[in-house]
């Protein structure tokens, strides 16, 4: 939750955090509206205008969510790696928060990809899961970043968290290609023809391709919007950890020095929340 400094204390500490409006700014509001519009487009094109597929029938519509989410998830994890590297380089907590926010959203997107993909698989292949190289790698990717997020939640100072998670964020970059390579080798030796033959179908209908494009735009906007909010939310959490108690103490002292009985009703204990 956000910090709401509603107490009208004219203290220097409290004046610094003018966060009563939440994590929104003009920029995020514009992006947020654009996201809603793009999502509306995606619904219209994905469910309405685009035709059904000859082989996959209506199930093809799931791909307008499935494909963009995994692309954006890869983008998100790339941002996490860059943020991790930049943190180790510059030692600025902003990079760490960007890496963390991006990883959180990327993990959610991978989860969406897996769930939607499983539903699509059930409709198209008849099974929820296929031990195919790409599916297996994606599942391990998901677990790896769940681990990364768990590391971020270990206790310690912000700097400890940042350094630790930056190292883990970079090790994940080392890990994923190795996992992908081994799983591909594993499947290629043990399975001659995979069911994923639908990928060979490159000649896509124009309207389908456009719907997919709309999906990519919509989910990119959603990603940017979420990352901006989450990064600011993390900044507030860190600020609350660092300064919350100081601000609360300053507020109490101001009350005591004012010694006006009427003001002692403002029991907003930011430091303990």
């Amino acid at each position, binding site marked *: 939750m956000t910090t709401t400094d509603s107490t009208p204390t004219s203290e220097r500490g409290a004046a610094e955090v003018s966060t009563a409006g939440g994590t929104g700014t003009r920029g995020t509001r514009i992006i947020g509206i654009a996201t809603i519009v793009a999502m509306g487009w995606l619904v219209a094109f994905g469910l309405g205008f685009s035709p059904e597929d000859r082989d996959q029938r209506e199930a093809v519509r799931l791909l307008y969510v499935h494909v963009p989410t995994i692309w954006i998830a890869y983008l998100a994890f790339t941002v996490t790696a860059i943020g991790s590297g930049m943190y*180790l380089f510059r030692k600025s907590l902003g990079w760490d928060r960007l890496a963390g926010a991006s990883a959180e959203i990327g993990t959610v997107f991978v989860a969406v990809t897996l769930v939607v993909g499983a539903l699509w698989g059930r409709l198209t292949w008849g099974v929820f899961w296929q031990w195919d190289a790409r599916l297996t790698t994606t599942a*391990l990717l998901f*677990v*790896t970043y*769940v*681990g990364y997020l*768990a*590391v971020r939640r*270990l*206790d*310690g100072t912000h700097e*400890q968290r940042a*350094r*630790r998670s*930056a*190292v*883990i964020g*970079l*090790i994940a970059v*080392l*890990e994923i290609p*190795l*996992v992908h*390579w*081994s*799983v591909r*080798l*594993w499947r290629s*030796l043990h399975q001659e023809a995979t069911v994923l033959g639908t990928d060979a179908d490159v000649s896509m209908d124009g309207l389908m391709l456009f719907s997919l494009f709309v999906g990519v735009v919509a989910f990119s906007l959603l990603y940017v919007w979420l990352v901006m909010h989450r990064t600011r939310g993390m900044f507030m959490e860190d600020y609350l950890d660092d300064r919350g108690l100081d601000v609360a103490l300053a507020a109490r002292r101001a009350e005591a020095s004012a010694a006006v009985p009427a003001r002692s009703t403002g029991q907003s204990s930011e430091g303990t929340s």
Partner: protein
Amino acid sequence: MSVRHIARLVAAKDLRIEWHSRVLTNQVLPFAAVTMVIFAFALDAEVVLERVAPGLIWLATLFSMLVLVQRSFAVEVDDGALDALRVAGVDPRAIFLGKAVALGVQLLVLEVVLLFAAVVLYRQTVPIGGLVLLVTTLISATCGLAAVGTLYGGLAAGFRGRETLLPLLTLPAVAPVLIGATRAVEAALGTAGAVVSDGWPWVGLLIVFAVAFGVGGSLAFGPLIDE
């Protein structure tokens, strides 16, 4: 003192502690043996067991490794020994290498015992022709496992009661070792008609993995434990 010399001292220290406390022989090896027995309960058919025996050897190794890694760092954290090493100005790379070597030695003992258990319980045979492949596989897989285990063990060590994090981080990371080592051992033992030459590409994977995590781990270990 050079990194190699300190690493050897750290490894010797760990192995000496192990030798005196006998945790490996009294707890980890029995745990691994129980795992091998309960796999048989779960899979229930001799034919299936014979077919999947190499994979079960490595699964039991992975589970036991988690126990070994926790033990290896519990020793360091309990009396602030890791902090003392850092205060003494010991290079973190040397600590990493030393602990990885000690862990690797214990893992090798464990793997040999598990292989023996597979011969007895799962009716495996070790053909002479596959012996070179088998030994190479054991060594290269062990190097990779020891590097990953030490790296994530060091990360989780700073936090008492955070042992639950170790399996979550370690198991996805060592998936390539599980795949590669299982296929290579299948080839070495001739499980399901596999031939020895099939195993060597997998050894390549294991070596790349060991080198990547050996180098990555020794670089990352300093920032991880330097709190």
